[in-house]
């Protein structure tokens, strides 16, 4: 059962990073394909093939490169690099705080990309993305803090091999993390800034002015990000790899189910509900833990 960890420990840090860099886009793209197929089935449609996201990205790389200004793609490349960086840090087994902050920096560059172009839709999307970030970021940091409280370490390699199941100590943190995961996956009801679904009131939000290869890069970044976030879900159940993998997958399916069942929230409700949930589930969990110790 622990053969996964034996393989993992046998690899050096560089090798772990390389495995992540190569495998994550395939896993992420496949997950996106499953998402689209399952969403279609839930709506009573036949749906595109599971490989559809790969077709989309390969097509986008063949499209013409249109630039509104020269800073536009610079920000997108940094968004990509920092997301990959935090994923690499995470899967190499290094500091989870660094991964969390790297992800926040990547998000910041994505917002800057939205603001760097002239389209009002893009600006509106970027403003909404700021609100989303303010909503979810406390919970992400609380997750790292809660894990530190239980294990006494910020290193992912230590967290994942902690003998006691983290979920038993951090049920509130896990519930809160699940809540903000809907924002991170860009799923309804929190897909304010950009949506994968066809029609949105602000066209395509942040990605309105990005076409061709830049849009493909945004999509690939999103795949990396999804794999990283599911990796964080994995940590809660790290005591048993098979349960952890099953729960990670179940979380993704759960998010699709939520996506299909909710209409989009207003930003006020998104912000207030997320912070309220963070306070009730996340902070109370940490307070209880600190009293118990």
């Amino acid at each position, binding site marked *: 059962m622990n053969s996964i960890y034996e393989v993992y420990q046998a690899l050096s840090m560089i090798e772990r990073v390389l495995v992540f860099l190569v495998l994550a886009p395939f896993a992420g793209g496949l997950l996106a394909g499953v998402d*689209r197929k399952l969403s*279609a089935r839930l*709506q*009573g*449609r*036949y*749906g*595109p*093939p599971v490989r*559809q996201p790969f*077709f*989309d990205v*390969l*097509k986008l790389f*063949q*499209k*013409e*490169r*249109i630039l509104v200004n020269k800073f536009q793609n610079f920000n997108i490349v940094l968004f990509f690099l920092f997301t990959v960086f935090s994923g690499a840090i995470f899967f190499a087994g290094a500091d989870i705080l660094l991964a969390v902050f790297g992800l926040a920096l990547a998000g910041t560059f994505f917002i800057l990309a939205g603001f760097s172009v002239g389209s009002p839709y893009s600006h509106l999307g970027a403003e909404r993305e700021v609100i989303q970030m303010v909503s979810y970021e406390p919970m992400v940091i609380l997750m790292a803090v809660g894990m530190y409280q239980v294990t006494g370490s910020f290193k992912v390699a230590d967290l994942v091999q902690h003998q006691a199941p983290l979920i038993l100590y951090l049920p509130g943190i896990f519930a809160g993390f699940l809540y903000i995961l809907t924002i991170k996956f860009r799923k309804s009801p929190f897909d304010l800034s950009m949506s994968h679904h*066809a*029609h*949105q009131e602000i*066209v*395509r939000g942040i*990605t*309105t*002015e*990005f*076409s*061709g290869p830049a*849009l493909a890069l945004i999509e690939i970044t999103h795949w990396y990000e999804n794999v990283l976030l599911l990796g964080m879900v994995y940590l809660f159940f790290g005591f048993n790899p098979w349960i952890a993998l099953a729960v990670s997958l179940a979380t993704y399916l759960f998010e699709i189910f939520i996506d299909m069942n909710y209409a989009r929230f207003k930003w006020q409700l998104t912000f207030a509900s997320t912070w309220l949930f963070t306070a009730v589930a996340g902070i109370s969990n940490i307070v209880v833990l600190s009293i118990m110790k």
Partner: protein
Amino acid sequence: MAWFKRSPWILHYNATSCNGCDTEVIVSLTPLYDLERFGIINTGNPKHADILAVTGSVNEKSVQVLKNLYDQMPNPKVIVAVGLCAISGCVFQDCYNVMGGVDKVLPVDVYVPGCAARPEAIIDGVIMACEILEKKYREQKKRRG
């Protein structure tokens, strides 16, 4: 490789339609016809689109918007004229404000007849447009060397 055929994204613009053809375009996205099984997505954004589906005849006002949308689409791109009005102007062709079909102002690649065009015909037209998209991409690549 032929990726355009696997994921053509549509931008739909209503030039001056009676909404008959518009409804049919939307109907082809519903569970009964489900355009998305071919990887076709109805984007609301010209910068993401490969195929411009135009319904209705072009008039003096909508021509600017139509040209603007077409110019914003990255190459390669294809125009599909959906319905009789988009093809020739139909019964409106003698109106003082109507310029006629879409091909009076932009190069149309596929004509989908019908008043209103049937969803089956629209899907057929879009699939045909995919082939033209591929051809345009190959030509474009050859020109650049």
